[in-house]
């Protein structure tokens, strides 16, 4: 009887300590995460412009967005197009870089540093840099193109070429996915590749039937992270093009920002945020579902 009393006293003490250590996050969660999430859901059902109190409109915001807002659809189009084009390219390039770095080359750490360095520079600085590089008249992109006889477009002011410019910008940050691929590659036991070679497989077959399947969890991880990230691209769109020309680079989050903080239509902006969240969830879920077919986990 004594033992059980002391035991439960100790457990209660430990539970108290647990929540004590957890308390910063608990407080932060209620104030800055949980509370705002609920508030934002409610706001998305209201008309609110900061100056007057919110007015309940039910699903009115969502209805207007879907049926009466061409810019909403445009921003979805721009963001989806960008995502669909940029991510496969990015994964391909970072995987190739990881494969190269995985060969036994001396100076590996130098190359790794150089390939990761661009992604250390983020946000506004990178956007400004690219804004200068893609300058129609004096930027080096068009200069380098002119060296091979190509007359480069006015990238950032051309409705067709502005998204390719954004895609090129995203490829520059191949560092993080490359590092993750590299770690994944180094986790593949050499035994598997050697066995395959002994069984008569050539280099390509080893790649497709051993390396890639063993890498598939890492590919899945990178894929999901990149999708979640590219749906929320904001800084280059805001800093460089402000959505232009003619809304051909109107990324979703930029439109959301404009809706909520320029036009003060905060109810509708909250609705946009929730639509974004649901979209990301759907995409992630769909990819997870499909992953059962192509992702191979070690047993």
């Amino acid at each position, binding site marked *: 009887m004594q033992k059980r009393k002391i035991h439960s006293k100790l457990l209660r003490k430990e539970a108290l300590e647990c929540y004590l250590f957890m308390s*910063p996050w608990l407080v932060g969660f209620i104030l800055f995460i949980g*509370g705002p999430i609920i508030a934002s859901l409610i706001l998305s059902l209201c008309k609110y412009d900061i100056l007057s109190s919110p007015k309940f409109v039910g699903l009115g915001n969502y209805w207007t967005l879907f049926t009466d807002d061409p810019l909403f659809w445009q921003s979805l189009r721009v963001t989806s197009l960008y995502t669909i084009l940029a991510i496969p390219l990015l994964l391909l390039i970072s995987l190739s870089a990881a494969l190269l770095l995985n060969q036994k080359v001396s100076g590996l750490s130098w190359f790794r540093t150089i390939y*990761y360095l661009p992604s*250390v*520079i983020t946000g506004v*600085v990178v956007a400004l*840099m690219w804004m200068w590089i893609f300058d129609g008249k004096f930027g080096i992109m068009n200069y380098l193109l002119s060296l091979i006889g190509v007359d480069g477009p006015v990238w950032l002011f051309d409705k067709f070429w502005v998204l390719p410019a954004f895609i090129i910008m995203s490829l520059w940050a191949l560092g993080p996915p490359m*590092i993750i691929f590299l770690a994944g590659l180094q986790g593949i036991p050499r035994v598997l590749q050697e066995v395959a070679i002994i069984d008569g497989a050539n280099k390509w077959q080893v790649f497709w039937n051993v390396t890639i399947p063993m890498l598939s969890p890492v590919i899945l991880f990178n894929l999901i992270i990149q999708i979640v990230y590219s749906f929320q691209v904001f800084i280059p769109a*805001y800093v460089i093009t402000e959505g232009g020309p003619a809304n051909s680079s109107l990324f979703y989050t930029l439109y959301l920002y404009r809706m909520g903080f320029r036009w003060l239509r905060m109810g509708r902006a909250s609705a946009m945020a929730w639509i974004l969240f649901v979209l990301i969830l759907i995409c992630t879920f769909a990819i997870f579902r499909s992953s059962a077919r192509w992702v191979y986990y070690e047993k």
Partner: protein
Amino acid sequence: MSWRDRSRRNRRNQWRRVIRKIVIYGVLILGSFTLLIPIFWMISTSLKPFEQTLIFPPRWIPDIIKWDNYSETFTYLPFLLYYRNSIIVTTTAVIGQVISASLVAFSFARLRARGRDFFFFLMLSTMMIPIYVRIIPLYIIFKQLHWLNTFKPLIVPYWLGGAAFNIFLLRQFFRTIPIEIDESAKIDGCGTFRTYCQFILPLSKPALAAVIIFSFMFHWNNFFGPLIYLSSADKFTLPLGLLGFKDMYYTPIWNLLMAGSIMALLPCVLVFFFTQRYFVQGITLTGLKR
């Protein structure tokens, strides 16, 4: 096979290996150049007088190296102020982040309580929620608190847990520390907090370093938060302040813009160079280990 055939095959294989090495090195070096050209171009532009930036074909090495572009950034805009603001916000936020994240991670990793795992998964799931969902209510909250146009919205949330990613990283790392350490500390009479301070934390230096680095990079480069919360130029951080060079006149003042950008990115690059191991460690800690 005769020894002559064998040596011929060996020589062929040797050739193949050499060619393979050349190709690999070649591609790697070509890639390196492609990646570094933008940075060289930035540096080159930052050392030119303004007129020289607007010529075609562009010059790589300016004939007058204008070092005082760098000092001019301080006179054109309150650049030093922006730098100071960035330093203030970043250091206080990072300190708060490290302290609170490690406390919370310790609770998830070592201390037992009913509902602990529920809160852990709750925390993980918040990682998936875009900031845009919360930003409008957050703006309203900070407006009611009269915290708008101060640094408080950029700092306080990070003293209260902050980024779930960092908590997750530390929790995973804490779990790799053998429980025997905690037990022997307890036998020696240490309470929970002392065990945490004197044993767990010192053993967690790599993970703590990773958190400091990631947190530093995030706050130093944070643009969206300052954009929403800061409205007067004297409060601007570097990312916001840099835009001043872009928007002041009809065309951006390219040379000053690039000089300012380089000064803005220098801390990040320096931190990166001195702490590379922790970068790789940090990313793989969360990505792959179970």
